[in-house]
């Protein structure tokens, strides 16, 4: 063999050794790899070139690492790979777990970014009747999901207290009769909460969630309440429910309340103030959620919206600050990161419906409008309220469960949110943990499929994943992040 032939042979890529994987070239020059089992490896640009050309020696430590993670075809542990894929996709045949009952479209707040299409508190004809609510509970119980959650939402659900109370008692009764686990949750601004209502909720094991956008000035700017100080109500009842959760009694479980942060243009640059406020209120989690130009918020976007780069910066700064606080012994976690870490680190499915494949529309959640109309998800209902019923999948009084699951919108959302059929997602390194949103795509790009390279939501996801993987590379921050999801 001449030297020339030998050189030619050894330079030829031995692609046979490469299994299926996706990759992303990171800003620092490294390359992140992932596979269908959700395993990852970060390698230098040089090592990636050797790996992809099949020139990594089997005696190298990197080879062993890649082989253990399923990146060497001949060394694939089929059983382990299939088990990991199965675990992370366990939700596929589970049936819808989240059932959102819109108690009323009325609300006594006028939040700047409200996506729910709420009417004023005095609005008429948009309260859910007891009959529709009971039918909705029955429908929810048809789901094959072993642990369903019925979430009472609005508008402000406390404005329809009688139906809400009746639904809680009815759902508890039906759950007992059927031997089914039924979780109940209330999303409220707390402005109409009373001792009596709070006691009822606690005694019936209803968990509560509210909005907290930061310190009083910021919260009240975002969440306009003509009846007074929205922040003061939020703070008062958070304290009450945290206090109740701290004093568990044997008769029932009391849940710690949670709060949601919606980032508006006014929040930018105030990351520390916001995180400090969550700590001040005694909350252990903060959920940094971007605003979406869906429904009513779409009209207000020029005033309250921001670019994906601005949100990515906000998110990174928040996460950096939270990690710094953790390093100093303060306990607070960022929920988005927790959800993603649960997937990335533990390989599990935390049940987050907006970031999975296919997304949760219909097969993971159903939204029940006040009049019994069913939507593939709550965001789809908001689009409906703006006059476009594309995401309507039936009516609880008229349609069978099977018909609803087979509704055109149910199927279209599942198909459109399948990442394998999205040209950009199918080759994206974040595919094992990401998800696309047909409602967002439809509202911002005019099609359920959307176009990821020009999608603001995709850019947000990329920014959040980049931030997370950047932190996971640093031992000190990785330790803190992993502790957040330690079992």
């Amino acid at each position, binding site marked *: 063999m001449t030297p020339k032939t030998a050189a030619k042979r050894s330079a030829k*890529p031995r*692609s*046979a050794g*490469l*299994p*299926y*994987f*996706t*990759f992303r*070239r990171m800003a620092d020059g490294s390359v992140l790899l992932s596979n*269908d089992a959700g395993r990852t490896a970060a390698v230098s640009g040089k090592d990636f070139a050797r790996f*992809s050309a099949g020139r990594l020696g089997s005696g190298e430590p990197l080879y062993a690492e890649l082989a253990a993670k399923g990146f060497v*075809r*001949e*060394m694939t*542990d*089929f*059983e382990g*790979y*299939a*088990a*990991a*894929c*199965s675990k992370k*996709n366990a939700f*596929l*045949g589970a*049936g819808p777990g989240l059932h959102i009952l819109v108690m009323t479209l009325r609300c006594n707040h006028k939040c700047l970014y409200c996506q729910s299409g709420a009417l004023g508190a005095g609005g008429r004809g948009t309260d859910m009747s007891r009959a529709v609510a009971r039918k909705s509970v029955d429908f929810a*119980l*048809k*789901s*094959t999901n*072993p642990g369903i959650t019925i979430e009472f939402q609005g508008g402000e659900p406390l404005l329809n207290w009688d139906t809400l109370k009746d639904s809680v008692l009815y759902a508890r009764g039906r759950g007992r009769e*059927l*031997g*089914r686990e039924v979780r109940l949750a209330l999303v409220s601004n707390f402005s109409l909460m009373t001792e009596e209502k709070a006691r009822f909720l606690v005694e019936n094991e209803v968990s509560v969630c509210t909005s907290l956008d930061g310190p009083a000035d910021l919260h009240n700017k975002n969440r306009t309440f003509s009846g007074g100080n929205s922040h003061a109500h939020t703070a008062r009842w958070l304290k009450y429910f945290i206090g109740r959760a701290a004093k568990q009694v044997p008769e029932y479980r009391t849940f710690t309340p949670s709060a949601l942060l919606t980032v508006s243009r006014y929040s930018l640059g105030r990351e520390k103030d916001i995180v400090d406020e969550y700590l001040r209120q005694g909350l252990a989690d903060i959920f940094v959620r971007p605003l979406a130009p869906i429904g009513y918020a779409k009209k207000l976007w020029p005033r309250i919206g921001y670019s994906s780069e601005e949100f990515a910066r906000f998110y990174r700064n928040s996460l950096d600050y939270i990690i710094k606080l953790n390093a100093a012994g303060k306990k607070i976690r960022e929920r988005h990161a927790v959800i993603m870490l649960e997937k990335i680190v533990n390989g599990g499915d935390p049940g987050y419906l907006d970031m999975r494949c296919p997304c949760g529309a219909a*097969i993971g959640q159903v939204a029940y409008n006040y009049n019994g109309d069913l939507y593939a998800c709550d965001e789809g209902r908001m689009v409906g309220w703006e006059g476009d019923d594309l995401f309507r999948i039936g009516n609880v009084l008229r349609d069978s*469960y*099977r018909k609803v*699951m*087979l509704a055109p919108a149910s199927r279209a959302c599942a198909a459109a949110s399948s990442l394998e059929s999205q*040209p*950009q997602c199918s*080759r994206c390194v974040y595919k094992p943990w990401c998800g696309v949103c047909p409602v967002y795509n439809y509202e911002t790009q005019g099609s359920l499929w959307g*176009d*990821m*390279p*020009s999608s603001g939501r995709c*850019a947000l996801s990329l920014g959040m994943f980049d931030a997370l993987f950047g932190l996971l590379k640093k031992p000190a921050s990785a330790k803190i992040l992993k502790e957040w999801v330690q079992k």
Partner: protein
Amino acid sequence: MSENISIRVSLKKYSLDSVRYAAHSLGGLVYAFIKPLPGGKVLVELSPKPGTTAAKAAGCARLFRGELEDEKLRERVSSGNRELREFLLLKAMNYQPKPPEKDDSGLTPQQEKELNDLIAQIEGEIKAEAAKGASADPLGITSTWEDKYDPKNGRKKIR
């Protein structure tokens, strides 16, 4: 307004799919037009979208070339593993934990043959299943709780 960028690509070196995917990945910055040229080539014209800065537009040719190279690898990896991937995903869908067996890190020729036979068998099953039409619901998504677990339907109750 930034100028259009024209790049010639040989289809002997890159597949048309690779060219398409590479062009598509720049869709946040530019519109891409792909035109056939004589001699097994295509002309890729990148036209900056409104809002794309001149500096970003200037980097597009380099980005496109880099993406094209990466696409070539993705295509190789994807086509070289299609059957194996389908097999693994199908295995995952029907996964039942098994008791640990003896160490099987690596495939012997015999195992490889068995694997290929299995893949062929599964491909046949997938085709047969697909032929039954879209009404098949292997995950039971349209089933209600009663359909699945009610003892009256002859199925076991979940708890």
